[in-house]
């Protein structure tokens, strides 16, 4: 019985529930010391001097390392970051955001390190700072990095047709500016890392989404040859993008090198907030339509707030560019996407990366257009949908698009044609829908290895990280089918760069497709090698050997052996199959970031959401009564997990939609804790929450990642439902009760009801 298509439970489901699965948070190494960062209280300040005497006097403190120490060390390149190495492990010369590590204390105990950290005296000279990306992009704004005096951290453009002429001749032109604030990923497990140089090379444990990216960065920092750094991870307690790329590992590796001992660093919750955040974004959107609803032109300008350091923003802003058009056929388009440095927490991808900010803009505006034209929002979408054979602004002729089915599904699920349930007095109800389009990281590289060992089991070596998303059972199911054996015969450990081959990252909803394809190829390779081994053993042509059901067989001679029998008979230790998925095209391989032309993704992610809300007209509070989330899932490995991912998107998305927002005051983050920054709890889940996965009919269809597909549609679906209920359009997230109440007052002042 095939594994794919069945809902195989995670092998460690019980252990997850009772809390016994291993995390890096649980790892301890003999002789390890503990590190605590000293963080800048100022958003932008020159570091005049650092006095460490008092901190060093605390019993148990081993050393205090500063940015100046790293700068003076000829054997360390303290700057990391790909593609732009602008971030020092500790601030050198100046601090660029409030919360940036400027020194690190290493002590025998975590308590001693924490006690000593406030005693490190740093003499700062405050500099003018900038928090808002639009201000930072203006001439004369404070400069965050001298090397990039315009604060530019990514700049991309695409032009298609003649948008100026088309807008000039359009029957109607709509312009809006849409704001999404920064938010925090809030993974349950904080960033945690242990670095150990004592064995000759550098050994690292880290709760990371990208172990090989961490390995490469550390090898570069310390000029170690490839393979000189070993990075291991275990189950990772949630990522949502926060643990992509490189985070605290360089700092911990520097501390361990200075200490000559293993060093462990576990971030406190406020430090997690200060390490990575979502890109705040402003989207200026102009759309020209004909009176019949045909979209003829679109101009988009998006400015992503990169924060103080680049991380992936130079490329992520390009990913935003490729998604900004939305899932519509528009013949004349101009898009400009930039990322801008500011003195805030560095931004990195946040589930629904770069896309949520855009979908909130284009899907909100589309409902405004529908209202103005007197059209049904669903019909307006159908009229303009991007379909197979149509040309995207990048010049790609699109295929494998399924927005018609997605819209049909949303229509059914939310009973679009039916009126909302009657609202109680003082409340209003409405329904909204939204869809989104997203590319996946391309180019990209996933390698996989399958090792048949003498006991007949097959070891699956893959660096895909289990974040709780279920990639582990998914990859086992896929591999079992490709090999034609039961998944019970597969063995898989955790990512370990010394043993599990290269993989770019576990993010961008890429693992099922990219690693799944690499494993398919590895399985074919393993079978080919088994065939060759058997052929050699039996003295028959390889093409006559059959590999099935865990056996090799030669029908002509009647020879038949189980795989482990073949190994025993031939004295073979193990048979290894290898597979690589590495598309040789994509965004970063295009010639000109200011004239983006060509294929930017191996396939397009497609998803949507529908919501029914009830608005309290006296308080402005929006309650989501019903939510439906869907996606195109291609060939589905586990229908249950796909639906759960969609539901996860719906719940995760409600936070930034309704209340999640990082607040800055005088350049300092004021709510870096889970009391002042709220995330949805189980009681915030709508009473009715449903989801569906549109499966491809045929078995040759592509596998699709599904981790983020519905998420970017959640906020606009809710905003559109609010609009349907009240006629009030809010162009700024989150849709807080106060914001809604003020907007209701402007739209149609709430009567003072005194009973």
């Amino acid at each position, binding site marked *: 019985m095939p594994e794919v298509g069945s809902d195989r439970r995670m092998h460690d489901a019980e252990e997850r529930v009772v809390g016994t699965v291993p995390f890096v948070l649980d790892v301890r190494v003999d002789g390890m010391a503990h590190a605590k960062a000293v963080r800048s209280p100022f958003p932008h300040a020159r570091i005049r001097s650092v006095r460490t005497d008092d901190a060093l006097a605390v019993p148990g403190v081993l050393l205090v390392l500063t940015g100046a120490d790293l700068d003076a060390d000829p054997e360390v390149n303290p700057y990391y970051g790909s593609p732009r190495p602008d971030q020092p492990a500790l601030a050198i010369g100046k601090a660029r955001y409030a919360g940036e590590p400027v020194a690190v204390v290493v002590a025998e105990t975590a308590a001693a390190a924490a006690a000593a950290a406030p005693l490190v005296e740093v003499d700062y000279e405050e500099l003018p700072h900038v928090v808002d990306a639009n201000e930072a992009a203006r001439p004369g704004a404070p400069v965050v990095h001298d090397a990039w005096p315009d604060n530019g951290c990514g700049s991309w453009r695409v032009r298609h047709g003649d948008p100026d002429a088309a807008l000039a001749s359009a029957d109607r032109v709509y312009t809006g500016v849409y704001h999404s604030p920064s938010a925090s990923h809030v993974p349950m497990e904080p960033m945690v890392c242990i670095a150990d140089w004592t064995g000759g090379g550098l050994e690292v444990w880290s709760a990371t989404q990208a172990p090989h990216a961490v390995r490469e960065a550390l090898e570069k920092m310390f000029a170690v040859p490839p393979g000189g750094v070993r990075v291991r991870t275990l189950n990772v307690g949630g990522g949502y993008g926060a643990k992509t790329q490189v985070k605290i590992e360089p700092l911990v590796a520097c501390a361990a090198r200075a200490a000559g001992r293993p060093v462990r660093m576990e971030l406190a*919750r406020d430090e997690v907030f200060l390490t990575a955040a979502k890109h705040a974004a402003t989207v200026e959107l102009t759309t020209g339509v004909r009176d019949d609803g045909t979209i003829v032109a679109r101009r988009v300008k998006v400015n992503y707030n990169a924060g103080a350091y680049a991380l992936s923003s130079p490329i992520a802003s390009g990913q935003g560019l490729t998604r900004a058009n939305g899932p519509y056929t528009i013949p004349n388009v101009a898009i400009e996407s930039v990322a801008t440095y500011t003195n805030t927490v560095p931004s990195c991808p946040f589930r629904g990366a770069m896309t949520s900010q855009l979908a909130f803009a284009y899907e909100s505006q589309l409902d405004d257009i529908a209202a103005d034209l007197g059209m049904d929002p669903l019909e307006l979408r159908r009229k303009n949908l991007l379909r197979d054979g149509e040309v995207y602004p990048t010049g790609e002729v699109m295929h494998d698009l399924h927005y018609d089915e997605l819209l049909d599904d949303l229509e059914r699920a939310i009973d679009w044609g039916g009126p909302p349930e009657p609202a109680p007095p003082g409340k209003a109800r409405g329904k909204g829908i939204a869809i989104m389009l997203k590319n996946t990281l391309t180019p990209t590289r996933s390698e996989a290895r399958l090792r048949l060992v003498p006991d007949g089991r097959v070891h699956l070596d893959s660096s895909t990280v289990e974040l709780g998303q279920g990639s582990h059972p998914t990859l086992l199911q896929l591999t079992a089918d490709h090999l034609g054996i039961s998944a019970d015969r597969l063995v898989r450990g955790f990512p370990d760069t010394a043993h599990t081959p290269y993989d770019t990252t576990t993010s961008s909803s890429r693992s099922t497709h990219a690693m799944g394809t690499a494993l398919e190829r590895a399985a074919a390779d393993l079978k080919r090698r088994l065939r060759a081994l058997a052929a050699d053993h039996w003295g028959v042509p390889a093409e006559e050997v059959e590999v099935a059901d865990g056996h090799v067989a030669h029908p002509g001679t009647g020879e038949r052996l189980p795989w482990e029998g073949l190994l025993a008979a031939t004295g073979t230790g193990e048979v290894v199959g290898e597979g690589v998925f590495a598309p040789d095209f994509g965004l970063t391989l295009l010639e000109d970031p200011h004239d983006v032309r060509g294929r930017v993704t191996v396939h397009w992610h497609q998803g949507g959401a529908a919501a029914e809300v009830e608005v309290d007209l006296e308080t402005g509070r929006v309650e989501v009564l019903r939510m439906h989330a869907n996606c195109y899932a291609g060939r589905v490995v586990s229908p249950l997990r796909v639906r759960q991912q969609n539901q996860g998107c719906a719940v995760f998305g409600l936070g930034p939609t309704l209340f999640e927002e990082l607040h800055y005051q005088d350049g300092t983050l004021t709510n870096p804790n889970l009391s002042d920054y709220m995330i949805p709890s189980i*009681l915030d889940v709508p009473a009715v929450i449903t989801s569906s996965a549109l499966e491809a009919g045929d078995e040759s269809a592509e596998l699709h990642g599904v981790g983020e597909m519905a998420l970017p549609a959640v906020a606009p679906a809710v905003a559109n439902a609010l609009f349907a209920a009240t006629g009030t359009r809010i162009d700024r997230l989150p849709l807080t009760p106060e914001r809604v109440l003020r907007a209701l007052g402007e739209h149609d002042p709430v009567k003072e009801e005194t009973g």
Partner: protein
Amino acid sequence: MTAPVVREPGSTREACALLAADPWGTKVVSGGTALVLMMRQGLVAPQSLVALWRIPGLAGITRAGDVLRIGATTTLAEVAASPLVRSVAPSLAHACSVVGNPRIRNVATLGGNLAEADYASDPPAALASLGARCHATGPDGTREIPVRDLVTGFYETVLDHAELITHVDVPIAGPGRRATYLKYRTRSSEDRPCVGVAARLDADERGRVRELDVVVAAVAPTLHRVPAALDAAAGRAVDDALAGEVARSYAEAVEPLEDARGSAWYRRRMVEVLVRRAVQRFTAPEEVVRSA
């Protein structure tokens, strides 16, 4: 931050002596949900903690005549689930059931909740509206403090550093008593209140107001109460007009603070809406205790 020494006295007398001996370096800990958060954020850094968990007789819910007595170290979950509290003081049970989340309520204690004096908290308003009094003991003896008068400012109470709350007495009324607690949140369901309104009505046989009390939490450093508006309600029929008048008085009198849960402008608006809704609950024949 060095980990503080934890002392575990066996009596309130011993606990008070420990507190009196080191007025700057010690803090009382009961459930720890508030104190540990403050320690983690570096807001307080006590050298030693005086834990109440080994002191006998501080936890428990009993009834003596027309008084409901709740020990200081009774958890909020225990108060919320107590059949006795639910029967004689349902608004208090409800207020305790909507604090934070189950992890918090299972360890946070009623005495700790009062002594912390967090402006954005649910139980104090409910207790105050019911006329509850807390009993404190200290080096100079014991005293009774109306819950209404306990808090004097942000995280400040009338309690002396070496004084401990031992229990809270809640008067139990006869027929004609209606009470409710309305929690209004602007963010997640685990949030503190943006506005919390506790209301109590003691009505006469004709249903007219004998005594009305309305206490609003989370809008100012201390509990918000407008005695003149409550006095003016005496003898009136309980109807929408009364609810509206009381609500307007409360909204006019409040000097609202602002925080991440709402601006001063918004809070004033919500005081009016929520006070009105709370009092309006008494116009319906059956009391429905639920959150906003």
